[in-house]
């Protein structure tokens, strides 16, 4: 007789698998994370998970929280959407982000701006330097063209559908999917306007550290870059860590770095006057 022929047997079977450990999985509680970022106390940890190839995740973070994204093996491509957690109709605006800062390339000190003139996240540290504000998420069609299929139920899920699933778990829908940022794969613009992919693979372990400047929902998907011409569905796991931190003080160098950025922080501080 099968060991799962009755509920007792099925229960034992189910419970026996819970101790399984794989590389790409969440750590609960986050304080149990085996490798915490340097200087972060266990009880400050808010989130620890590793996303596999094609994986996705979403998390609400409070103002002041730190979020670290680590490209463990040097070939990740992490697409990100950002919402104001209190009022998700306010969200990342990639066009305003590059226009207001007079530069299209993300790097240390850059601010990720909402469509309401406020800072959602700031980029405190950037050990990668290759990111993309132009090309957006892969789609079912673009993955089907390159890999033969691009569906959530197949082996080559696309970033847009992964972001949509992640956002849906916060009650958000297709209209909430906005232009995204891609971390770890870079796109540079040539003199004639051509997009040039910096596709790696890169040194393992590069990371970026962000600070939540508002209460945010971040939504992430780890899928090959839209311009990645390799025949295989090549993308490697990303570790995501978040921990508690204080909201940005008035004398913060990043807050005061540019007149445009300072006004974006003033808009945030005005929003929290309540």
């Amino acid at each position, binding site marked *: 007789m099968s060991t799962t022929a009755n509920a007792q047997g099925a229960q034992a079977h189910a419970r026996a698998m819970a101790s399984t450990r794989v590389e790409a999985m969440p750590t609960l509680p986050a304080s149990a994370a085996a490798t915490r970022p340097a200087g972060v106390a266990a009880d400050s940890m808010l989130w620890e998970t590793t996303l596999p190839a094609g994986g996705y995740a979403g998390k609400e973070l409070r103002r002041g929280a730190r979020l670290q994204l680590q490209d463990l093996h040097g070939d990740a491509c992490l697409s990100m959407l950002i919402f104001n957690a209190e009022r998700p109709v306010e969200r990342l605006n990639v066009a305003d982000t590059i226009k207001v800062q007079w530069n299209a390339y993300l790097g240390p000190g850059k601010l990720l701006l909402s469509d309401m*003139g406020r800072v959602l996240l700031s980029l405190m540290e950037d050990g990668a330097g290759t990111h993309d504000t*132009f090309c957006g998420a892969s*789609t079912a*069609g673009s993955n089907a063209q390159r890999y033969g299929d691009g569906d959530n139920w197949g082996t080559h899920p696309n970033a847009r559908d992964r972001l949509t699933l992640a956002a849906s778990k916060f009650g958000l829908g297709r209209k*909430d999917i906005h232009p995204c940022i891609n971390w770890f794969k870079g796109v540079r613009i040539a003199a004639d306007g051509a*997009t040039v992919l910096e596709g790696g693979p890169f040194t393992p372990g590069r990371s970026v550290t962000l600070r939540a400047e508002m209460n945010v929902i971040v939504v992430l998907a780890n899928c090959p870059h839209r*311009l990645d011409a390799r025949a295989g569905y090549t993308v490697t796991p990303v570790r995501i860590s978040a921990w508690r931190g204080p909201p940005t003080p008035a004398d913060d160098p990043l807050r005061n770095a540019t007149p*445009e950025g300072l006004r974006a922080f003033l808009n945030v501080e005005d929003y929290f006057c309540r």
Partner: protein
Amino acid sequence: MSTPIILDEIVPPRAPWSHLVRKGETLRIIDLEGNQSADFLMYAAADDTERYSAQDTIAAQRNVYLRAGSMLYSNEGNPMALVTQTDVAYHDTIGGACSCESNTLRYGFHTFGHHACVENFLQANLRAGRGKRDMVSNINWFMNVPVEADGTLGIVDGISAPGLHVDLLAQMDLIAVVSNCPQINNPCNGFNPTALRMVITGRS
């Protein structure tokens, strides 16, 4: 063969405009007085959760500038309109639309009350049941946003001129929404917002 004129309208300076363009029809946008940014969005008429996607368009053509021959894609990866002809060297789709809020960052809090393209888009879309969630990165016809080698970019003096135009051949039934940009704090309208002319013609 003649091409029937379905619509020929002037969009006053600073005003919104919206109209259905059926598959096979051509929308011509004419920059009547030169260097007038025509901020542009479009939605699939059958299902307006499908809309223009700047990122899908850039990724598909591997270039940030829109020129004759550029296919404009939706967020679902479907062709929405083809730029069949334009006598301006290139157009912008990375600079986004001006808003009261972004104006405060770019120019100072004194500009919060200035009319802006997002206000126009919202007004035009709200009448059709769309709202702020339907705002995505748009096209700026006749606006010049060069990107330098180090990523530096800015809205700089235009490269359009009086009477120049762009022609869009609809690949599906679509709702075109335009904000005739009211911005006076940068050179996108030559510091003087002027009228646009919209002409929709049928299949030739």
